[in-house]
């Protein structure tokens, strides 16, 4: 989604734009991927991590009206759906638009949660444009130490 090359300056930005355009033209490519994986460049980009206590999902969605974002969990699938309006005007004789790289429009991302995630205790927070969703793991599935008793 983002350029991460070490090319000097914004040559990286140029390549990233080219890559995005190529992806849009040619789609996902030949290799199979998760059945719910979306095209490169999907908005918002998502990172997912786990700890022994919870599963955490980060959606990078700056400038979104969070009241209108729908976060839901059903059958082990977490869905983040909403809309971003960049309020970018059309080119006219008063306004020239030189770059329109930011995503504008409706979005929907779906991730599957592991079996030990407890969907009844989901918490979501939006700060500085990142939507952070924490799904605690079921108590019963947390790692438990089993003490082995020596038998004589």
């Amino acid at each position: 989604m983002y350029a991460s090359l070490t090319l000097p300056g914004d040559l990286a930005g140029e390549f990233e734009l080219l890559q995005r355009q190529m992806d849009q033209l040619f789609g996902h490519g030949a290799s199979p991927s998760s059945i719910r994986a979306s095209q490169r460049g999907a908005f918002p980009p998502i990172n997912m991590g786990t700890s022994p206590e919870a599963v955490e999902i980060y959606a990078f969605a700056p400038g979104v009206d969070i009241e209108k974002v729908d976060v839901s969990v059903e059958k082990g699938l977490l869905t983040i759906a909403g809309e971003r309006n960049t309020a970018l005007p059309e080119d006219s004789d008063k306004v020239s638009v030189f770059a329109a790289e930011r995503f504008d429009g409706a979005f929907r991302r779906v991730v599957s949660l592991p079996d030990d995630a407890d969907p009844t205790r989901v918490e979501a927070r939006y700060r500085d444009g990142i939507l952070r969703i924490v799904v605690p793991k079921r108590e019963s599935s947390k790692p438990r130490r089993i003490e082995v008793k020596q038998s004589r």
Partner: protein
Amino acid sequence: MNMQRQTNNREAGAPEMRTLTPAVDILEDEGGITVKADLPGVARNDLTIRVDGDTLTVEGAMSLGEAPNLGAVYAEVRLAHFRRSFVLSRDLDTERIDAALKDGVLTLSVPKLEKAKPRRVAVRPE
């Protein structure tokens, strides 16, 4: 109007850091240039906007606020720093740049120099 991306001039001795290039919208109207950049996870304290001659550089560090023992499962965003530079044309007033950050979106307004704004010229009657 001439607004292009600038090659970063690395300071001598500074390590080259891999950075994300934030998506931007750029528009120009009679008053000047407006740039909106997506910088998710960047708080005001972690944002640096520099003007060096005619080059404007925006840099920001992303903070997720994640738990320290979090192990990554899936990552579409793999770096935690943003950087992007722009060369500003001479009709822009680099001393009066206005910057606002809200919900991870940086809005920069760079006004035109007064003398560069469109003006009508009165014609003297002869």
